[in-house]
């Protein structure tokens, strides 16, 4: 409950990854941190879920079937309804050029794979705290 007695809305995070193990670990950590997690298993599903649920933040794997993380981010930025939703890319590609490509596409931050659940939580909290 918030201070005025109205129920506090849990922030909603869309997590998208085609690796079921990674998706479970991401969702588990974020749910334990008090977020509601919506799951997607490929890029097209992620884009659709983002448009339907308008989450507070999106955690996107880069290498996904149908649409990769860069393409999803660009599509989100091009749509007025989703253009301001923060995006964290979860990526095994950590060459400078790949990171730059993510930022050029419109991502707000990135987390390197293999990943640390605690680091992901900190990045999520930092971005949501700034809003």
């Amino acid at each position, binding site marked *: 409950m918030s201070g005025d007695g109205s129920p506090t809305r849990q922030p909603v995070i869309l997590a998208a990854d085609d*690796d079921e*193990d*990674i998706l*479970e*670990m991401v969702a*588990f*950590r974020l749910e*334990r941190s008090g977020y509601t997690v919506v799951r997607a298993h490929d890029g097209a599903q992620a884009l659709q879920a983002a448009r339907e649920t308008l989450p507070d933040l999106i955690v996107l794997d880069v290498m996904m079937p149908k649409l990769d993380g860069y393409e999803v981010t660009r599509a989100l930025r091009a749509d007025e309804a989703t253009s301001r939703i923060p995006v964290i890319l979860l990526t095994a590609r*950590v*060459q*400078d*050029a790949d990171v730059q490509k993510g930022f050029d596409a419109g991502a707000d931050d990135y987390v*390197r*794979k*293999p*990943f*640390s*659940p*605690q*680091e992901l939580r900190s990045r999520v909290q930092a971005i949501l705290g700034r809003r």
Partner: protein
Amino acid sequence: MTLFVVIAVLAVLGAVAVLAALEHRTWLTRREARRRETANRLRPSALALIDGEDPQVPTLSGPDTLVFADLLVHYSRGLRGEADDRISGYFESTGAVDRELRHLHGVRERSRVEAAFGLGDLGSSRAVPELVRALDDRSADVRAAATRSLGRLGATTAVQQVIAASVALRVPRAVAGAALLEIGPQAVPSLLELLGHEDPHFRADAAELIGLLGAANDADALPSRLRDGSPEVRAATAAALGRLGSGTARDELVATLQDRVPYVRASAARALGQIGGRTATAALLEVARHDEFDPASEAARALARIDPALVLRAAEEPDSGPHLLEAADRLRL
């Protein structure tokens, strides 16, 4: 009559074989269903152990232990940092690491292969020295499994030994390369040291891997290798500089277009195309017009990346040669 008996016996045997196969398949399906059910039951505990906050690891026995370990192994492949440490800590506390280390020294090849492979997934750095020793195992499969596990463990201390095993053909080059790539950018300091190794194969592999794993500032150590005595090293160095996009090495790469070995010149031309910048165009044009097939072809492609308009103009000239004509045709597509 005899023929009838034989046919009848064969028919009965066939029917028995089909029934046995069906029974076996049913048994496998049931076993997999039980394993999935157990995994679903234990998954929250595995995730809680990885997460580290309020972990409640159940007391396990029998098949549950194996399924729980299997879950942790799967999750560990996507994790690093404290979460990965917690998984290796769990396996150390249950004695699984010591057990696999004993199997690594076993008599049966199959046990040694499974141990060498499994130790990479258990995540314990205690296994690194033993896995390095396993690179000299008499079995090629054990050596390959140990190499893979050293990559999984991010064993930066084993970089030189993995390259040595690859150079000596004790492990397949692809397996060693994959392991070193998995170790990632942390392998670069060791690779930079190997640029000075006495064996040119080490130097060439090191240069190639620096190109794949390094960052722009790692390129500073490479240009001197463009004057290495081994053409393999010179070609690998040029390729690495191209991948790293090192503009400061452009002049050295232009000089390498005069190398006496054609595949080194080709590698330098390709690198100049990747790096870009118009200061190299005159030298590339010369190579594209007059050099042997491979360097000329690479130079024409590089020019097409750097300055397409120049290629289209050059292709109209009488001495353009086949490679500039081809590059121009590709640009017009």
